[in-house]
C-alpha cells in the first residue's frame, strides 16, 4: 500500500469515533501497544527533545527502505508516534520525502503537531525527513 492508501485507512478508522474520548482512548491504546524501542536506543543520542514529553527515534536502512522504531514517555504522544510510524516506516526515502502527512489534520490531531505544542512530535517529523534525505544521499553516492 502507498502512503496515501495507509493514510486513508487511518482516516476511515478515525471517522468511526463519536467523540473525543473514544479518539483519545484509542490513541492511549495505540500508545500502550506500540512495539517499544530497543532499550539500547533509549539514550540521549536518539532523543528528540520536546519541552515536556520526549521522543526517542531510531532509523535503520535495509533493502532500499527505512525502518523506524520510536518511543515516548507520554502515552498520547506515543499513540500519535505509532500512527506516524504506521504511515512512514518501511518506506523508501523518496516516499518519505514526498509525504505531506495531512491525514493528521483530517483526524483532528493537527494541534498536537503545532510547533508551540511542546511534545517533540514536530521535531520527530523533521528528524524522519532528515533521515530520509540522508539515506537517499548515501544511496546515490554508493551508486555513483
Amino acid at each position, binding site marked *: 500500500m502507498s502512503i496515501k492508501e495507509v493514510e486513508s485507512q487511518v482516516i476511515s478508522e478515525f471517522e468511526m469515533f463519536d467523540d*473525543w474520548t473514544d479518539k483519545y482512548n484509542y490513541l492511549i491504546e495505540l500508545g500502550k501497544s506500540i512495539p517499544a524501542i530497543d532499550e539500547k536506543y533509549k539514550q540521549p543520542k536518539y532523543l528528540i527533545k520536546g519541552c515536556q514529553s520526549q521522543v526517542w527515534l531510531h532509523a535503520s536502512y535495509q533493502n532500499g527502505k527505512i525502518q523506524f522504531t520510536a518511543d515516548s514517555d*507520554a*502515552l498520547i504522544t506515543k499513540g500519535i508516534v505509532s500512527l506516524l510510524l504506521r504511515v512512514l516506516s518501511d518506506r523508501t526515502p523518496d516516499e518519505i520525502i514526498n509525504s505531506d502527512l495531512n491525514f493528521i489534520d483530517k483526524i483532528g490531531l493537527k494541534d498536537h503537531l503545532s510547533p508551540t505544542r511542546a511534545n517533540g512530535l514536530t521535531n520527530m517529523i523533521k528528524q524522519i525527513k532528515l533521515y530520509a534525505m540522508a539515506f537517499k544521499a548515501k544511496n546515490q553516492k554508493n551508486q555513483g
Partner: protein
Amino acid sequence: MDFDIQKIRSQFPALDQQINKKPFVYFDNAATTQKPKIVIKRLIDYYNNENCNIHRGDYFLSRQATEAYENTRKTVQSFINAHQSDEIIFTRGTTESVNLVASSFSKKFVNKGDEVLISAMEHHSNIVPWQLACKERDAQLKVIPINKNGEIIMEEYYKMLNEKTRIVAVTHVSNSMGTINPVKQIIDAAHNKNIPVLIDGAQAMPHLEVNVSELDCDFYCFSGHKMYGPMGVGVLYGKEEWLNQIPPYQGGGEMINEVTFAKTTFNKLPFKFEAGTPNVADVLGLEKALTFISSIGYKNIQKYEKELLQYTNRQIKNIDKIKLIGTAGKKTAVFSFLFDDIHPYDTGVILDKMGVAVRTGHHCTQPLMDFFEIPGTVRASLAVYNTKEEIDQFIDGLKMVRKMFV
C-alpha cells in the same frame, strides 16, 4: 464591600467562552491573568485619543499623557506604600526588573569572591540574571535549600548570611508551588548584617497586600500582566539610596541629562533607569489593574482565594494516585501535582479537552524540579475570578484522566 463573584467575572470578557464545547476554565493564572474591561478600555482609549510621546512635546496631548503616566507612578507608589514616587521604575516586567538590579547592583557592589544568595525555588528569571552577574564579577551564587514541603529552611538561610554576602534575592511567592515565603524575616535577618534584599513579587502582587515600607525590602519587582494588567509592563521598586548609587542599566533617550561625544551625565531618578520611549499605554493600563484590585480589596481577595484553596485541597486529595508538589503551611491557590503513573503532558491534553487550561512542564523552575526528582508537574493556579463550579469541572477532568489511563 460585598464580594460578588458574578460581578467580578462579568468584567472579564475572555472568561465568557467555550472551549471544546465546555465552559472555559482558566487555571493558568500564575502564567498570566485575564484582563478586566477597564484595563482593555484604557488601552483602547489611549491609542484612540491620547497617543503621543511623553516628557518632551510641548503640546496639549503630550502634557496630558505625561501627566497620566507620572500620576500612575504616584498610584503605584501609594499602592505598595513606597516613600516616594522616584523609587518606582517602570520596566517591561519582573524579568527586566531583576536583570536591572542584578546587572547594575553587581557592577557597583559585587566583586571577586563575594556571594549572592538566592533560594532553591526561584523562577529562572531570578536565577539566570544573578548567574550572569556572578560570572562577570567572579562571584559565587549560593542557594538556600528548601524542605520537602517546598519551604525555605530558615536555619540554613541564617547560617549562609556572612561577610561575603552582597545581596539576597528571593521570591515572595513560589510560581510552581504557591509557597508564601517569610520575606519579612528574610529581610530582617539580612539587614542585621547590612545586606540588602531583592524580592521577586511577581506571584505575590495578584494575591497579597504588599507594603514595601513595612517589609523594608531594598528592591521589589513585579509584573503588570500577572495582576490583571497588560503584558509588557512591570515595576522595579528600589530604595532611593540604592538606586542613586548604582549605575544606569541601559543608555538612550530620556535617561540623560547632557550628552556630548566625550561624556554623558545622567538624569535623576526615576528617569535614569527608563531609557527610551516608555510604554505609556501599558503603564496606564496597569493603573486600571490597580483600580480593579482596589475595588475588591486585598482582604476580600485573600479571604475568597483561601476558600478556593481549601475547597480544592479537600477534593484533590480524594483522587487516586495523585501527589501534590508544594504543601507549605502558607500558600496561595496554586496546585502543582503529578499522577504516579501518568505523564503531565497526557494529563494536560485531557484537561484541555475538558475545557480546563492548566500549565504542564517545569514552570521555568528546572532546579526545583530536580530537587523533587521529577521532570515537571501539572499546575493549576487560581485567581480571584475563579469559582467552586470551575474547581468541580477541573476535578471532573482529573477523574476523567484517571479513568482514561487505567
